């Protein structure tokens, strides 16, 4: 076991320790070195990409999948820090706020590498606990307190469910190693108890992913939490959920009970999410329901369960965090005094901040899945994988959902470009514009030239499904 291979995790841990030290002197505001350090963290994760190792009695595994997701997590964390960097005057964004964010991201990094169910559970809890503390942190806002309670109660209930499921799996299969579990049969006829347990265990991750019917917390929490916290909760924890689901989906094959459940939940989730989003006026609630729909799209790849499907799911989660971070970036900037922006606050954005309107348009069209954006390529891979495995109905439901979703995403663009408003111009610093512009360009670039990143995702997929 070489320490060098653990560079991404260690770097983030070091950042967290440094943040802890910085929090001791009671200074407010984001430490000025933080963006640079998290940026280097992305570099560290990039260097860690080729690491392959098994450690800690084979419970902790560095493989293509885990390293790919570690890269995504460190990138997402850096972007959230970058978004916060634009809010120097905000009193709430203290070093310990970032320390908690970092701890949650660290837990997710560990989660990406766990290949044993109990370790996996511990990593999941590690990432969740700091979120429980983070969500109510919003000045004296009552909505934040409500959101915090909802998140904890929901989370605790679902965790209990997942643990209960774990006990069934252990009882039926006598092992908690994913590799050993993958080797045995997962049809309901052969192992009814284990299949039931697996379904319950998966529920814990459906909750993180905000998949129907575990999505009820999602719009409320996004709305209640601070904009920056919402930007984090909406993106990075979903990566953790996807990576585990990808690992677990690898040992079931298409058209089994578990896979069909995934497909049905996916179909219901995208439809319910999109329909509910149609009537939202609050931007964060809208994005909340949209993320429910996107959780449904990811299920296309997981239900397909093939190497192509799993790589498509991994690639889609990359596209998902890119476009959502771009959208949340706009939300955070548009919000005055950290309040929740509504659709009407976007009115006339075109005049008030042309660059911001452009970034919003790119993000919204990517979320629709319009080419040439990352959202389109991601969806294309998912559809193609699901169709190849015979989930024709699911593909048709998914494309019809695109038609539903266009209305509300286009609504954002419509408000920005054709709405009239007397609100004063938004003054953005050059750095903020460049930061948002880079996000938007990445969304386009991954859409136009997906090959290098898709190959990384494909490596992860084929590793699970040789």
């Amino acid at each position, binding site marked *: 076991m070489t320490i060098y291979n653990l560079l991404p995790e260690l770097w983030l841990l070091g950042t967290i320790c440094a943040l802890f030290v910085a929090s001791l002197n009671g200074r407010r505001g984001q430490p000025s070195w933080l963006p640079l350090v998290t940026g280097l963290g992305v570099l560290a994760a990039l260097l860690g990409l080729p690491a392959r190792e098994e450690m800690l009695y084979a419970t902790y595994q560095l493989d293509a999948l885990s390293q790919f997701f570690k890269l995504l997590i460190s990138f997402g964390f850096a972007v959230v820090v970058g978004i916060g960097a634009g809010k120097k005057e905000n009193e709430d964004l203290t070093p310990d706020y970032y320390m908690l964010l970092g701890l949650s991201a660290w837990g997710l990094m560990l989660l990406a590498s766990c290949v044993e169910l109990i370790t996996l559970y511990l990593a999941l809890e590690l990432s969740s606990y700091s979120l429980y503390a983070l969500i109510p942190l919003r000045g004296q806002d009552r909505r934040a307190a409500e959101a915090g309670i909802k998140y904890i109660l929901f989370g605790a209930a679902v965790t209990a469910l997942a643990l209960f499921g774990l006990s069934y799996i252990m009882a039926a299969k006598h092992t908690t190693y994913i590799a050993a579990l993958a080797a045995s049969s997962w049809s309901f006829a052969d192992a009814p108890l284990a299949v039931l347990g697996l379904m319950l265990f998966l529920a814990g991750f459906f909750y993180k992913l905000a998949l129907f019917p575990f999505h009820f917390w999602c719009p409320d929490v996004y709305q209640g939490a601070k904009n920056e916290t919402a930007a984090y909760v909406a993106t990075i924890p979903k990566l953790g959920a996807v990576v585990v689901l990808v690992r677990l989906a690898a040992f079931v094959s298409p058209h089994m009970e578990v896979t069909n459940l995934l497909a049905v939940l996916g179909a219901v989730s995208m439809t319910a999410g999109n329909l509910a989003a149609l009537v939202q006026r609050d931007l964060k609630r809208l994005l909340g329901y949209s993320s429910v729909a996107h959780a449904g799209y990811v299920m296309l790849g997981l239900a397909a369960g093939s190497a192509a499907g799993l790589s498509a799911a991994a690639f889609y989660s990359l596209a998902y965090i890119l476009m959502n971070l771009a959208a949340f970036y706009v939300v955070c900037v548009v919000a005055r005094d950290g309040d929740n922006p509504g659709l009407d606050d976007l009115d006339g954005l075109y005049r008030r901040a042309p660059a911001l309107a452009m970034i919003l348009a790119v993000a919204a069209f990517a979320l629709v899945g319009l080419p040439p954006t990352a959202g389109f390529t991601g969806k294309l891979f998912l559809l193609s994988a699901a169709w190849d495995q015979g989930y024709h109905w699911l593909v048709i439901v998914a494309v019809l959902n695109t038609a539903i979703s266009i209305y509300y995403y286009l609504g954002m663009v*419509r408000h920005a470009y*054709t709405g009239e408003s007397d609100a004063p111009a938004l003054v953005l610093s050059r750095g903020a514009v460049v930061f948002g512009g880079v996000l938007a360009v990445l969304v386009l670039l991954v859409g136009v030239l997906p090959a290098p990143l898709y190959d990384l995702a*494909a490596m992860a997929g084929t590793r699970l499904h040789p």
Partner: protein
Amino acid sequence: MMTDNGFPVVTALIVLPLVAAVALFFLRQERTVRLATLGVGILECLLAVPLFGYAPAGPAFQFVEHAAWLPALGMSYHLGVDGLSLYMILLTALMLPLCVLGSWTYIGKRVKEFHFCLLIMTSACIGVFAALDFVLFYVFWEAMLVPMYLLIAVWGGPRRRYASIKFFLYTLAGSTLLLAAIVAFRQVGGTFAIPELMEKTYSFKFQLWAFLAMALAFAIKVPMFPFHTWLPAAHVEAPAAGSVLLAAILLKMGTYGFLRFCLPLTPAASETAAPIMIAISVASIIYGGCIALGQSDIKKLIAYSSVAHMGFVTLGIFLFSVSGVSGAILQMLNHGITTGGLFMMIGLLYERSHSREIVDNQGLGKFMPSFMFLFGLFSFSSLAFPGTNSFVGEILVLVGAFKGNVWIGFAAVPGAMLAAAYMLRLLQRVTWGEPAAYKPSWKDLGTREWVTLMPLALLVFYIGLAPALAIKTIEPSIERTLADMRAKNLALGLTKDMPLAERMRLPASLTVAKAADSTRKELP
């Protein structure tokens, strides 16, 4: 990247406007922006000149460019030109400088962004016509929606919000199923490359579903009769240049889609659906004509006439005869020239009288003789007067119709008569009607406006008087497409009077099924 002949012509045509669009952001003055875009437009036309070297007797696809894009999934950057797309690409390139000139004074706000949208549109439209990879086609097909939406939503008329969102929702909703069809073709055909997909035959059941998914997308874009409601709204609200692009290029994508995908990929299903498609086309012709007859808004009248004209195109396509299809392609080109010219002129008229109502624009013949000369020319072309371009296209379609089935011919003829009725009514009132109120702004055409309209006017005469050249270029591609179609249907065992239930049981021919099996394996 692999190219046929050294210089990547088509890529240059696509990339030049893109690069120019980005470069626009670094220009300050409005006049410089206009001049720069005009320069790019002229350069684009010059770059398109090598396409005249298209050899009709040569290989099916020429100017082919091929580069890896995402090999893991079988996607590639693959462009090429054949007789079906050649004139569409030329028309698109031609429209760019004309649109810039036509909006020189029409567009007064957000000039830079307007030209940005025009450039992106041009690039995406050329991409649609040149793409030989199914995904690449879809990328361009959808990418074109955004600039068009912005053209209507930002620079449009009073009801622009409604019109733009209707346009976007309608066309996007239609093309979502096209994506499912693309994915399905990859599974059975093993690739996204259109030329390779064309070589295979598919089981009838698959063809039928794929045909329906694709036909919905294309029929909305054309638009065919029950799906046409977005068109008048979009046309009326769009700025002049937007209307020109919409009429001249966008609508052609639908009919081009039928020719490029439905006929070669789903020949048996196309043959089965032909009677219905012909019936809808005839309905479009008659319905569009009747509604146009009752319009009081000039732009709406032309918009409905577009529905009728595009009806002739789809009618020609689904006759599956050489004269029908070549008439259809000519008609696509002609409609672009004629209706493009008409919309351009309506834009000029609107600048002068700030109204598009017929009653506000009566009796212009006395005040603007040369304007009325050109308007009359395009109107006569629109009603397919002999000697003008549309006559050639329409007569070919009608000949094809009468050859195919006398009744279809008789059903389509009233459409041609209706066209004469509504266009002459418009022309008579606008030229000789009693002026409701004389406006001092009714000035005759200026030099810039002459320059804008002359190329189109010349093309009206050129194609009208010497159509043989154009027909000769496109005919080999049409013959090839139709021959392929017949051969595939024969191989599939499709006969004329086979009931649908029996057709549904037709499998893909054996050799092909084997080839598909080997590629059906998981990618990567």
